[in-house]
């Protein structure tokens, strides 16, 4: 399979695709004897929407977990913003400007929507412990400044009405949206979305697609997403990586991937005779 030459350019809808932001080089991830990811390389460019697709168990979520620092690959290198990633804990990766959502919603159920979103701001808050204990000066100023940012995102995602509701009481679709808000409010350079539309009805999917496009368009956030809904993936993304059994079987624009014989075989199956 050949990959088309991909240069920085301006897309037909006026978005700018820039230089390589993240590069995965020959990543291999094993769990004991199981090889979840086999020697995969691909890159993510600034400003693009990059999708990772593949049948169940193909290793997509594992790949996202490698990017967010949750899994450490046994082989291969992760390059981010021109630097090779050393041994790093997930919270350190988050501080580099990588935020994510989860396949099974991972919100803080005991907290309100606003608190959940404000938690996403924590990498922008630096008031010392003592400042916060007496809540004077810096701590309060910082809280208010970050609240303003949180409110911006709340407006953007249209969840004003539920800001003080405990997350545990919300329906599924709204939870997904709050989770997106929590990731967005961190002002990430790279946003990872693990099946943002899983379990949604058509209307909710349309809403979510619109939010994803708006995020990319308005904030210029680079997005890498995993999704099962082919229609959605093909419409949203600039480039697609296709995985099957831990291997990369396709990489390119939606049109290229759609016509790739290996991809068609993986999705539809081939007759073995």
């Amino acid at each position, binding site marked *: 399979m050949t990959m088309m030459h991909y240069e920085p350019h301006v897309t037909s809808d006026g978005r700018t695709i820039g230089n390589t932001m993240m590069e995965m080089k020959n990543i291999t991830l094993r769990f004991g004897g199981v090889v979840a990811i086999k020697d995969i390389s691909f890159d993510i460019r600034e400003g693009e929407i990059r999708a990772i697709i593949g049948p169940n168990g193909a290793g997509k979520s594992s790949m996202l977990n490698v990017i967010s620092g949750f899994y450490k690959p046994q082989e291969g290198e992760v390059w981010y913003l021109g630097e090779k990633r050393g041994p790093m804990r997930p*919270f350190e990766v988050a501080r580099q400007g990588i935020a994510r959502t989860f396949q099974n919603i991972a919100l*803080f159920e005991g907290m309100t929507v606003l608190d959940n979103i*404000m938690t996403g701001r924590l990498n922008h808050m630096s008031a010392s412990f003592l400042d916060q204990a007496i809540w004077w000066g810096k701590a309060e100023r910082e809280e*208010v400044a970050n*609240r303003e940012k949180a409110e911006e995102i709340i407006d953007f995602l249209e969840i004003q009405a539920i800001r003080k509701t405990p997350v545990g009481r919300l329906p599924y679709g709204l939870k997904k949206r709050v989770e997106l808000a929590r990731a967005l409010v*961190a002002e990430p350079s790279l946003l990872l979305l693990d099946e943002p539309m899983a379990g949604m009805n058509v209307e909710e999917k349309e809403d979510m697609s619109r939010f994803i496009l708006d995020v990319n368009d308005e904030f210029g956030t680079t997005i890498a997403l995993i999704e099962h809904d082919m229609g959605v993936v093909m419409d949203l993304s600039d480039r697609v990586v296709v995985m099957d059994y831990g291997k990369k079987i396709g990489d390119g624009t939606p049109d290229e991937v759609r016509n790739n014989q290996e991809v068609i075989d993986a999705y539809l199956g081939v007759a073995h005779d």
Partner: protein
Amino acid sequence: MFYREAGDFKTSYSADNQTFPIAFDRWRYYLVLFVAIVVIPLTISDYWANSLLLPFLIYVIAALGLNILTGYCGQVSLGTGGFMAVGAYATYKLMTAFPWMDMVSVTILSGLVTAIVGVLFGLPSLRIKGFYLAVATLAAQFFLVWLFNRVPWFYNYSASGQISAPERSMFGVAVTGPNAEVWVKYLFCLFFVIVLAWIARNLTRGSVGRQWMAIRDMDIAAEIIGVNPLKSKLTAFAISSFFVGVSGALLFSVYLGAVEVGEAFGIQKSFLVLFMIIIGGLGSIFGSFAGAAFMVLLPVLLKIIGVDLLGWPTDIVAHIQLIVVGGLIVFFLIVEPHGLAQLWRLVKEKLRLWPFPH
């Protein structure tokens, strides 16, 4: 009617963030403060102070501490009694080694010593959670009590193995020792309660508190959005132990005066404080107050009803108390896991709309 937020518009985020957003709540809070600071010291009697007010104030501090660790950060601890003992013995050593030191500094330093010990025993929390952590803290409880019993240096080689608080004064009035008057003791404890409750509230509403709650609700997600679990859990242990240490220090120096470690700071104390926060409400500042008040009041109330009104023998009433507390714990765990604080919230919710609920 008066309990309304309608028309009470907030025009800034700090106004929206305040502790008591409803005007009526705010005034009630000032009234409570006024009564606590001015009215009670003028009218206080020995009986009320010793059977209710002092233990209430002291246990509020312990409950706040444990609530930070268990209610906010989700780390179950059964070592509260042991950490209170650390506070008490630190106070004793400081009082005897530095007789010139004032009691506020002694109490704060005792809290700091306990915070250090708490962090040490909190280290396992980085690896283990839930029941297993509870057992690890249980080990702290037994180890610390054993330590204070067995190492004579801690009780200054006294023959009885007890520690007793010498008399210390502040501004010319005795705070500790047999000559201290109750209103002084009361105000001394109240000072710590007000300051520490204020600190607890501030910490839990800001970034630190959200990190604790994030760890409690979903530690993996918390780490992935940028919470450092090591730092977050250990600060929770440190702050919690500081509170618990101050509480132990006050229990020893101001309230009891003389202490035998196994008796005063045994495993029952750990459970007592745990019951307070379960009944009061996990993850709630108000719940810590409500739970402490409830657990201090209950025995007094039962004694008044059982012994004084019905004329039952004291030991039977004492047994009934155990049954009632056990029953209540089960009741709260099943019916209202968020405790008295949640009931209070529900009442307020209803009041907002009363008398026209639609």
